């Protein structure tokens, strides 16, 4: 049995965490303000954006992978620009882009639900105490903090266990873009079940932890 001390396993786990962590950071940067905007304000086209968001929450990751692949490939609209900050295909950067697109609608959707769960009367009372609209928005976001945290963990759960998109845009290259999910696919195909199982257990553990955390936070939110 291959253990977690195996350097190859450690490398794969660390890369998975790094890619998904960075993707999560960017999807929180996009998703939390977007969710707050949709939850706290009314503007023309809001319903359309919400409908798109819900679609995004249930979007098949392989289609995201296909989209990112076409965008970033050397003949694609972004790839051909060859700008240094646009990641190339088959790099961790490309996987970050795909995972970010997969997870930000989840973060935004859950954040929106969380801030909409705050009593609208509270916003009025906060304004009556002299808040600017920005201060009021920030206050409501802080008030919905547990829900926002849940949104981030849900986003993490959606990308750490995702395989289709990272396989397409990352390419499962050893020492470079091989993450937990793609390594499991490869090892299984090779018949190396023991390594596949070890990786699977680690992945399962991470997804389980994320879900336990969500449940605990939601439990606390309900208690409060």
């Amino acid at each position, binding site marked *: 049995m291959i253990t977690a001390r195996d350097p190859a396993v450690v490398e794969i786990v660390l890369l998975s965490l790094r890619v998904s962590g960075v993707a999560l950071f960017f999807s929180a940067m996009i998703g939390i303000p977007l969710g707050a905007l949709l939850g706290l304000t009314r503007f023309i086209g809001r319903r359309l954006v919400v409908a798109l968001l819900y679609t995004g929450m249930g979007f098949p990751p392989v289609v995201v992978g296909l989209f990112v692949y076409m965008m970033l490939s050397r003949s694609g609209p972004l790839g051909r620009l060859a700008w240094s900050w646009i990641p190339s295909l088959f790099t961790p950067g490309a996987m970050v882009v795909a995972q970010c697109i997969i997870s930000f609608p989840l973060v935004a959707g859950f954040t929106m639900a969380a801030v909409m769960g705050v009593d609208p009367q509270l916003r009025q009372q*906060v304004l009556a105490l002299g808040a600017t609209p920005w201060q009021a928005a920030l206050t409501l976001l802080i008030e919905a903090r547990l829900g926002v945290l849940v949104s981030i963990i849900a986003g993490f759960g959606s990308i750490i266990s995702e395989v289709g998109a990272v396989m397409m845009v990352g390419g499962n290259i050893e020492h470079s873009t091989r993450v937990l999910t793609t390594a499991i696919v490869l090892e299984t195909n090779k018949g190396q079940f023991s390594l596949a199982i070890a990786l699977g257990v680690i992945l399962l553990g991470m997804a389980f932890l994320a879900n336990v955390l969500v449940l605990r936070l939601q439990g606390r939110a309900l208690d409060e």
Partner: protein
Amino acid sequence: MSEPIIALRSVTKEYNGQCVLNVAEMDVLPGEVFGLVGPSGVGKSTLLRLINFLEPPTAGTIRFMGSTFSAQDSVPLALRRRVTTVFQRPMLLNRTVAANVGFGLWLRGEKQSQTVINEALNQVGLARLAARQARTLSGGELQRVALARAMVLRPDVLLLDEPTANLDPYNVGLIEDIAHSINRLYGTTLVMVTHNIFQARRLAHRVGFMLNSDLVEVAEATSFFESPRDPRTAAFVRGEMVY
């Protein structure tokens, strides 16, 4: 007589084309306790929201501390911060009691001084609850914390929207005492909405009666209760108002 601190002229408010407030003229004098009575649904809370600049009027002007605002004008933040409201159903933030009392100071970029916060909590008799989570408070305590968080801001005008509705007599008494001392101690102008005419009688210097979106009558408290001019006011004061 001193210049009114709040002066409404031909103020109306409509929601979806429906007129819920129509006040030809209303003056509130600096330092007074202005009681506003009337049945439910006549526009009292709406009037307070306009005076707190939470919503603009549909038409008319509101003069506040020397500046006049009509529907389209935006009210400078500094001026908006001279007035605040204690609502019938106070909503506190999911933080400690002390953090709630300091919240308005934080909004203003001021130091959330423990001394100031404790002093305010003392005045509402809740200093011992400073470290408690706000969500664990009872109704009466909640309302007193709401008074404390307004009080630390030393507003020129404090609006009270039925602050004692649904409270037990003990807490009603406490809150009336606190309101009274805010007015006496700091000279804060109070506009107090209540449908309890006895409360208005106990606290207000002048009283206004609202009915069907209209300010029917404003008078000195004594004459309001003892010799109301308008027959509708008289019926309300005698407790005969049918609504």
